[in-house]
């Protein structure tokens, strides 16, 4: 938020924003796909101000 990004999707964690190392590979991949799809949805959503896409 502080650096001015307008469309923000909260991710998993700092060292692995799009992964969960403790999960099985297929489960981790499905989390990653979900986050990427959420980011794509953010890109097609009209916003007037900084927006955090939580779900």
């Amino acid at each position, binding site marked *: *938020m*502080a*650096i*001015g*990004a*307008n*469309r923000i999707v909260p*991710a998993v*964690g*700092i*060292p*692995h*924003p*799009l*992964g969960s*190392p403790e999960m099985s590979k297929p489960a*981790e*991949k499905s989390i*990653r*796909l979900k*986050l*990427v*799809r959420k*980011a*794509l949805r953010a*890109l*097609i*959503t*009209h*916003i*007037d*101000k*900084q*927006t955090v896409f939580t779900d």
Partner: protein
Amino acid sequence: MKRVIHFLNQFFGQIGGEDHAGVGPQVREQPVGPGLALQAALGEKARVVATVICGDNYFAEQPEKATSEIIDLIRGFSPDLVFAGPAFNAGRYGPSCALVCKSVKEVLGVSAITGMYPENPGVELYKKDLVCIKTGPSAAGMRGAIASMTAIGLKLSEGEALTASETEQIIPRGVRKNFHSEKTGAARAIDMLLDKLAGRPYRTELAMPVFENVTPAQPIADLSKAKIALVTEGGIVPRGNPDRLESSRATKYLKYSIAGIDDLTAAEFQSVHGGYSNVYANEDPDRVLPVDALRECLKAGEIGGMAEYFFTTTGNGTTLDNSRRFGGEIARALKADNVDGVILTST
């Protein structure tokens, strides 16, 4: 003798580096690391009764929970004054020091002080609620930072007014104080103008804010026809880092091909970012740059196209000026290549 608590991250708290950034709040009933210099500066006036340490990632991933746990630990020592950091230009440590100071003041009613480089994100987030000494970007400025934090911190806990030179050492909070002036505003403005024209030093009475609000881009009309690109500040580069991307304070960004690559592998890519543990990103670079997932979206027809390259830099202590330049140049290059949307991953 006043009772002082000192808050540190896992690194300055001497627990360890990035591999220990996940540790939760803990207490040492003695000064630790920079606390030794702090205790020396405080002398007989105050004693560092305990050091509270929290890992950078533990805090950054759950700031509210971490703050409340830290406040509970601090409360137990009934301090008169709390010091946090200094955090210099550390991007997670700064906001955590700021949030601890803010909560100490609000929840416990106790004075708190920290120190940061003016570009630390913690300043932008919390400066209104903070007494924060200006420091240099790195721990090389520790001695001076501790000296001014100590002098000003002790005054705060006594409720004493700061001198003009002490106020200069603090990051402006936007607090306005009224005072009587011999001259009217018009006369002062003319004086200032004459000083400026003559090249003499002058001081504005109304500093302009430096915020940048970017108008949100219009949404993509038809995702199934859109070309999407990946950009990251997570330091992902080909294994071996052939173009020597810096691990911190980056002076450049780089562009690498992913043509024909469906999945980033540890054999071909790695992270060189110096601000987080690279273990997970090195095992599977898709955890930072999701090439495999975006390829699937492309194959499923959810998006129309994908840039066959990515832009990368290291977002770790990178100066605002450089970041601004990277952003502008990358955006222009993407636009010239008819990219409709960008997923920028951040660590």
